[in-house]
């Protein structure tokens, strides 16, 4: 209590310091007068009395100083004074100040940019109010992939829970909007339960949201538009509310417009009630296609809500043993489902790189400070000799460091924002879900301030303490010239070696990054062929209800496409190259039966005849599909080369029989045996991975509602797409043709992730190495020219230029060896720490390391030779005289 009171009173004094000062003056004057009167009364002359009074009072100025110390906030006073002094001093050394601020700002900026990315992807959470109380529900089986919930399971859970404010379900899917006088357009959509937007806290900006009466069997069709669609398709016309359109061929009324960024759970821009989803009423308990999330009720505990769902699912597993045996429902916080974890090795590696860059820039600035404190040795020595304590000197240098760091933090924030802009613009606009918002928030600012404050201690403390150890007498005696005591040189060398070590770590990874492109495939050429075009066509269930009707459409379209002379080939596939498709369990006739543990899986894709020919590849063994394949009695399959290598190595492939499990992993009672009729080349289905084993089935065996068209064409891309669109809409005017791209574009889009992340890493490495190289050169060159004096003496005594250069080289080589050694150890340490995890970031590879060492060595040698040659050429007399 008293201390708060003291502080307050002092603060007040700080403000009122002028008044207090006058009051003290007056009190002292009065006191001295009274004292003098007392002495006069005792018989002194007035002059004697005044002198005696002063003696009795003591030193007036010292007392005032003590008074001032007691008054006001001494720390704030002193810091303010130091800061003002530091700013004046740095202003006088603008070159040094700017270099230090820029170098440090670059390091801090890169670090902050990386932290912004990390923050967005892991820490910030989804833009949902109280997102920690929202749980995502999914079905997990003892084996097989994580899946959604089936509609019957969803309904049973909704009816049974007590700890939730609500549980919502949605099913994303493409929606073709037409029948409103505009061209048919395909949009990303979702069928959602009426409570979805309420639970994520989003309100319509126009019209109304979904009500429970919209989401009932037999309710009239309604839809909500996203703001962007409303603006681009309808020119933001408010009269759009109530308009009748068709979506996927069904009549629907538009009832509301939702704000942008409500595209949860991803890129949806149009929403319809879940009950409008085709086939919902008939959905079986093992059709687990719904994505489900729930908000925990106010007052309920999240753990209880998680346990409650698990309990209900256990009950369902016994009640519906035929479908739910061995399945559980798991509820996890929605943030962990849709965002990464900061403790993931990838992110830890990411931030380690960020800190390496900061450390390199710190080492750079530390060397600058050290150099400067050499130049200032005389000033510091004089200050020390007139009574500046060591503590005060350290303090002054630290405050200078803090001023630099604060300016660098502001610079770094700017660099970071610019960097994030560039990073964001390298990512295709629709590639990331809307919730990845790379803006600066309080976490980013806190990290910025924390890192900047930390840098002061890294780059300023050691040089400051070092400078304060100056031997006053020695410095003043020889004019601050030859003060390159061993210890200081060792420190400079340490910073130099540290920079080298850190640069080696980054450069080693840079080189690895450049080397690893993965093995090439014979089929990779198709991704360079701009004549191959793919586009997606989706057949709405309303107008194409049966497999036969869909199959007829595909056949008709292919027939007409093949009739166009400019098209050299055309085919449909359920999954285009570079899309993964469905994973299925596999049994091969004549191989040992597999159990739960040894079960093999393969990708599966449906194709029409002519698929490989349209890609310009053809089959390697056996034959392509014909029109009859897939009909009863002719159950056939084509496998790719990778499949043959993986499962049937060294055996004959054509003629073997295989069977696939059902898509959701449950084994089928009576396997359908498919006969392998051909072997195709391996085509990449996933970006940046080795090829997958793929089984191709005739498209007719399971006709999908949405398929990728592959066309080889002599026309330019736009012309070919226009021709395709014309043919499609001649059959059905409501059908949009979308995602039309050449295969090179497909690859470009699929690789954005790898491109952006390796681009980012290379950029970081470049910055770090540029910083380190400049720093190395400057430090080494500076170290040499600092010894001009000594070089002069050596030359005067008869040393030859070559000997001078050799001497400098020897010293740098020792520093370099230390730095490289430490760097190699750190690189190995990095590998040990980060080699686990999903992404391979290892690199104990000698070739790139050797390249790295060679580059840095070249820089060092240059830094040693150029200045020392220059030094050795000067007149010894001049060198010795130069101060």
């Amino acid at each position, binding site marked *: 209590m008293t201390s708060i009171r003291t502080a307050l009173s002092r603060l007040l004094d700080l403000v009122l310091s002028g008044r207090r000062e006058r009051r003290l003056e007056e009190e002292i004057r*009065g006191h001295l007068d009274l004292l003098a*009167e007392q002495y006069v009364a005792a018989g002194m002359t007035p002059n004697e009395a005044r002198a005696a009074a002063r003696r*009795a009072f003591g030193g007036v100025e010292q007392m005032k100083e003590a008074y001032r110390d007691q008054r006001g906030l001494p720390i704030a006073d002193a810091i303010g004074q130091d800061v003002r002094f530091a700013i004046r001093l740095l202003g006088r050394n603008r070159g040094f100040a700017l270099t230090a601020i820029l170098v440090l700002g670059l390091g801090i900026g890169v670090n902050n940019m990386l932290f912004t990315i990390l923050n967005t992807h892991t820490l910030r959470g989804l833009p949902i109010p109280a997102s920690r109380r929202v749980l995502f529900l999914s079905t997990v089986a003892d084996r097989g992939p994580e899946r959604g919930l089936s509609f019957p399971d969803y309904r049973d859970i909704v009816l049974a829970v007590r700890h939730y404010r609500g549980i919502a379900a949605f099913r994303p899917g493409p929606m073709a909007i037409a029948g409103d006088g505009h061209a048919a357009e395909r949009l990303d959509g979702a069928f959602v339960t009426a409570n979805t937007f309420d639970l994520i806290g989003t309100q319509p900006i126009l019209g109304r949201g979904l009500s429970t009466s919209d989401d009932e069997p037999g309710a009239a069709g309604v839809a909500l538009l996203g703001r962007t669609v409303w603006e681009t398709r309808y020119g933001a016309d408010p009269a759009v509310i109530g308009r009748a359109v068709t979506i996927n061929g069904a009549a629907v009324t538009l009832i509301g417009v939702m704000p942008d960024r409500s595209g949860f759970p991803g890129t949806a821009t149009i929403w319809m009630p879940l009950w409008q989803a085709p086939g919902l009423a008939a959905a079986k308990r093992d059709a687990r296609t719904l994505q489900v999330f729930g908000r925990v009720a106010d007052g309920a505990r999240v753990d209880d809500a998680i346990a409650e769902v698990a309990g209900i699912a256990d009950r369902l597993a016994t009640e519906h043993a035929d479908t739910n045996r061995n399945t559980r429902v798991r509820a996890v916080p929605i943030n962990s489902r849709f965002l990464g974890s900061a403790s993931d090795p990838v992110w830890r590696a990411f931030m380690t790189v960020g800190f390496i860059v900061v450390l390199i820039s710190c080492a750079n600035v530390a060397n600058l400070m050290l150099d400067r404190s050499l130049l200032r040795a005389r000033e510091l020595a004089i200050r020390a000799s007139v009574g500046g304590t060591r503590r005060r000197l350290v303090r002054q240098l*630290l405050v200078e460091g803090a001023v630099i760091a604060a300016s660098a933090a502001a610079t770094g924030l700017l660099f970071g924002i610019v960097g994030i802009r560039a990073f964001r613009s390298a990512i295709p606009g629709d590639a990331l879900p809307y919730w990845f918002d790379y803006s600066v928030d309080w976490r980013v600012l806190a990290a910025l301030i924390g890192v900047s404050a930390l840098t002061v201690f890294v780059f300023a403390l050691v040089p400051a303490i070092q400078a304060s150890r100056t031997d006053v007498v020695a410095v003043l005696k020889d004019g601050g010239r030859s003060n390159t005591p061993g210890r200081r040189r060792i420190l400079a060398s340490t910073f130099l070696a540290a920079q080298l070590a850190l640069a080696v770590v980054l450069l080693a990874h840079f080189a690895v990054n450049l080397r690893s492109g993965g093995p090439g495939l014979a089929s990779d050429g198709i991704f360079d062929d701009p004549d191959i075009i793919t586009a997606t066509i989706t057949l709405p269930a309303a107008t194409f209800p049966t497999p036969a009707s869909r199959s007829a459409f595909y056949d008709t379209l292919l027939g007409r496409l093949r009739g166009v002379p400019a098209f050299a080939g055309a085919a449909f596939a359920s999954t285009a190259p570079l899309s993964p498709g469905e994973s299925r369990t596999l049994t091969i006739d004549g191989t040992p039966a597999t159990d739960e543990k040894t079960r093999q899986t393969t990708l599966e894709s449906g194709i029409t005849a002519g698929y490989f020919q349209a890609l310009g590849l053809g089959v390697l063994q056996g034959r392509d599909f014909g029109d009859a394949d897939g009909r009863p009695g002719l159950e056939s399959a084509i496998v790719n080369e990778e499949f043959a290598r993986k499962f049937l190595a060294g055996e004959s492939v054509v003629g073997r029989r295989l069977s696939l499990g059902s898509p959701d992993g449950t084994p089928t009672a009576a396997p359908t045996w498919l006969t392998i009729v051909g072997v195709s080349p391996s085509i990449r289905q996933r970006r940046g991975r080795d090829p997958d084993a793929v089984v191709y089935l005739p498209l007719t065996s399971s006709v999908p509602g949405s398929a990728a068209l592959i066309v080889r064409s002599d026309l330019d891309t736009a012309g070919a797409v226009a021709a395709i669109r014309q043919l499609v809409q001649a059959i059905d005017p409501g059908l949009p043709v979308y995602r039309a791209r050449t295969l090179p574009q497909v690859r470009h889009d699929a690789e954005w992730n790898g491109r952006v992340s390796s681009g980012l890493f290379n950029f970081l490495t470049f910055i770090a190495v540029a910083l380190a190289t400049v720093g190395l050169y400057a430090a080494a060159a500076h170290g040499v020219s600092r010894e001009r004096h000594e070089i002069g003496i050596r030359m005067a005594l008869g040393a030859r230029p070559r000997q001078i250069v050799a001497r400098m080289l020897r010293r740098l080589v020792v520093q370099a060896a230390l730095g490289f050694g430490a760097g190699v150890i750190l690189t190995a340490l990095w590998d040990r720490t980060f080699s686990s995890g999903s992404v391979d970031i290892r690199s104990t590879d000698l070739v790139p390391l050797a390249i790295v060492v060679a580059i840095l060595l070249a820089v060092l040698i240059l830094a040693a030779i150029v200045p020392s040659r220059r030094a050795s050429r000067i007149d010894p007399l001049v060198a010795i005289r130069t101060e």
Partner: protein
Amino acid sequence: MVAFLWSIDMSKEVPYGTLDLMVLKTLAGMGSLHGYGIARRIEQAAAGALELNQGTIYPALLRLEQKGWISSAWGTSDNNRRARFYAITRSGRRQLTRETALWERTVSMVNRLLGDAS
């Protein structure tokens, strides 16, 4: 670290030196006094046993005032001079009691200790 570099002397904050105790005691006994009067009074009480730089009482007065143990106001002295008068506050009296007790305990303890040693 910060405290070290900017030499915040923590011991200054901890209760106080004998001068503070003497000022409080003086004010408690004499009522309201100006700086000169306090200094005179302390010197008289010490009866020559104390060489006081009279100026040092001003930082002490400020310190005590900041802690709320004394208050001050301008007034007129006996010989019609404008002077600042200091008076002890209620919390100052409480503090004096506390400190006197502590002082006596300390002194008796040290005395016992010294008595044992001789």
